[in-house]
């Protein structure tokens, strides 16, 4: 069980850990210990920016070549509520049809409060379909994205009315940390990011079915400050390719009564500010502007610039509050875990950021 070595920060302790691994046991590596040795030594691992990728490559992807545009259309322009999912045990991409039937029966049974329902029965009022969105993963380690849709007849529908889509959700893993993915035992599939849209009761039914069937755990994904700041910077960076039309940030200050500040910046000015905080590129000139990697320091400087401009006028320190929402023409993201992607070109970048957020949030 050779773990591939990669370029994450290495200390000598790391190699000792590798030696201790015996070939008979399979260790479930905690994500945190993959990134740093401190946790092995018993230091409390903190959710600091150090643990996150300190630099990212940003590239707009013309993913309509790779991905079916119809599937893509389902993902964009709607607001999703996000959760993290622990790895699924014995999830097979080949058994999707059987899963559809099982989930449909489960939902019907729950709705009817425990009456026995035939799994093969034809007349269930909920029709569930599991499908795979091919081509959405970036690396070979990423499991294929699974899309779940629930169709149902509206309550007072006529006899011949078609079933309408009442709930949809997806599980995905984009650019997941390869060390972590390789450390998982064989039967586990890692699809850490779960997005759902639709009635809350259906969401909880779907989650409990997954929990029962695959022995996994769901939890709310709160997009913390650092990730929201990353999104702000990433979206501003895309301005020259596709205009963001405005950069809107909503801060909440912990005063009595709570104060909400909406700070909207003109996109051209935001882009110029962003450009001015970029460290000059050391790479060759043929490299595209947008394909350069972005560092956390640049993001921090960008946010500092915006906050200091605000401070100069209002003498109010925004860092005392909390950034609770970022939105632009390319999408929006809220602290509560609601995300909307409006432009298909940046779906992969946003999803890989969120995958990382989910992986970090997972308790194991």
């Amino acid at each position, binding site marked *: 069980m050779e773990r591939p070595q990669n370029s994450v920060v290495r200390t000598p302790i790391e190699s000792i850990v590798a030696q201790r691994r015996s070939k008979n046991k399979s260790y479930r590596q905690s994500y945190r210990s993959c990134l740093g040795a401190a946790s092995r030594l018993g230091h409390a691992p903190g959710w600091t920016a150090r643990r996150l990728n300190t630099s990212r490559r940003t590239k707009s992807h013309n993913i309509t070549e790779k991905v079916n545009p119809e599937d893509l259309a389902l993902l964009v322009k709607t607001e999703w509520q996000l959760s993290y999912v622990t790895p699924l045990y014995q999830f097979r991409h080949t058994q999707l049809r059987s899963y559809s039937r099982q989930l449909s029966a489960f939902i019907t049974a729950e709705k009817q409060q425990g009456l026995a329902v035939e799994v093969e029965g034809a007349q269930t009022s909920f029709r569930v379909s599991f499908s795979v969105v091919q081509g959405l993963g970036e690396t070979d380690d990423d499991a294929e994205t699974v899309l779940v849709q629930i169709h149902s007849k509206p309550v007072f529908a006529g006899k011949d009315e078609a079933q309408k889509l009442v709930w949809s959700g997806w599980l995905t893993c984009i650019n997941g940390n390869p060390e972590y993915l390789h450390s998982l035992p064989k039967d586990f599939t890692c699809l850490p990011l779960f997005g759902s849209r639709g009635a809350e009761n259906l969401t909880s039914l779907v989650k409990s079915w997954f929990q029962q069937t695959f022995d996994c755990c769901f939890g709310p994904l709160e997009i913390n400050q650092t990730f929201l700041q990353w999104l702000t910077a990433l979206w501003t960076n895309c301005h020259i390719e596709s205009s963001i039309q405005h950069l809107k940030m909503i801060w909440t200050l912990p*005063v009595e009564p709570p*104060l909400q500040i909406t*700070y909207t910046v003109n996109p051209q*000015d935001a882009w110029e*500010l962003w450009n001015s905080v970029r460290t000059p590129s050391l790479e060759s000139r043929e490299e595209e502007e947008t394909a350069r990697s972005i560092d956390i320091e640049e993001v921090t400087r960008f946010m500092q610039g915006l906050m200091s401009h605000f401070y100069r006028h*209002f*003498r109010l320190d925004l860092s005392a509050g909390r950034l609770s929402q970022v939105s632009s023409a390319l999408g929006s993201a809220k602290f509560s875990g609601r995300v909307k992607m409006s432009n298909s070109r940046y779906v992969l970048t946003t999803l890989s950021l969120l995958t990382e957020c989910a992986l970090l949030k997972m308790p194991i």
Partner: protein
Amino acid sequence: MDNTVKRLLERLVRRIPSRMLKTTLDKWSRLTATQRQSIDYTESKWALTEKLLAICEENELTVKHIAELEMIHVIENPNLGMWHAFQLMDPQGDAHSVELTQFKEQFKSHLSELIRHVSIKIKKHTDEAVWIRIAWGDTFSRPNHLKPTYVVHYLQTPYVFLSSLTSKQKPLLSQALVLSTRYQAIKDANLSGRKLTAIRDLLMKQYLQVFPTKFPSPLAERNRVVSNLHIEKEQAGSAANRHQMACEAFGDGLLPQLQSAVYKLETKFRDHTNKTMTERDEPFRCVVKFASTNLLESLRHSASSGTQKVLKTVIRITIIVFCKEVSYVTITWYVTKSCRILTASLQVSTRGHQSPGRNSHIVMLLH
């Protein structure tokens, strides 16, 4: 009985809460004592409406009388509906000596000249406010009493508050107001909201704002219960300082309840750590909106808890800007002293309503 009377009365009885119906009807004094006693206020609204309709028919009351009743209700509850503040500009010689009867006559005659069918009711309230109810008609139809406009004007001040005015009616009303108050123009004060009392207080400075040269430190009894002795002791000095500054800027008492303020800024970006942006010629454009259930209270609390460094002058200018008292001379002085600002415009509202229309470009000051 006239259909309009019926509809107006029905709507009115629906709107007035049951507990206030009795007092409002008593104030109206169009019902005899026996009639008033015969009304059972515990009945359902529908039954009450029927009863009142019967009484009104008995007394042969017309639309004008019902309109009176509506006006009484609105005067008692000014914090409903959406009010917009306007300011009269360029007073003529005798503007400050216009008194009630003169204003009433002039307003009625001017408005009736401008529009043929219009029904006007003017009433003076105890606190120097003149309330006007206008039901608009046109050359072909009678006044529509179901969509009246209310105007509140404080004599000898240039402030007028309007509610429910359409854009077609606006020029007519403006003309009549300007002529009858002896000013030359009227403009939007960019202040609007549901609470008439709040925007009136803000505009006419009827709140407790203290700008003392010496502010006594808060009395010991007013301090909060000490939660952690050690922390409180260390922070006591600076906390007291902040509290003092907050009180100096915002005053100690109740603040007018603003719900949102929108600032549109076009100012130069200056940051000594960022040379490129500082040397840029174009302004940095952004829009900042503050929202809270009680905005000034939030700001005052943020000042006393330390998230905001209160500069009295910043807040003072903000409040004064609402009242349009700063003359252009003073503003220019601030502009030259501070870092190069271009313009900033300000829209303030209560209860979340943004006043549309042109923003006045008020130069804001910076330190």
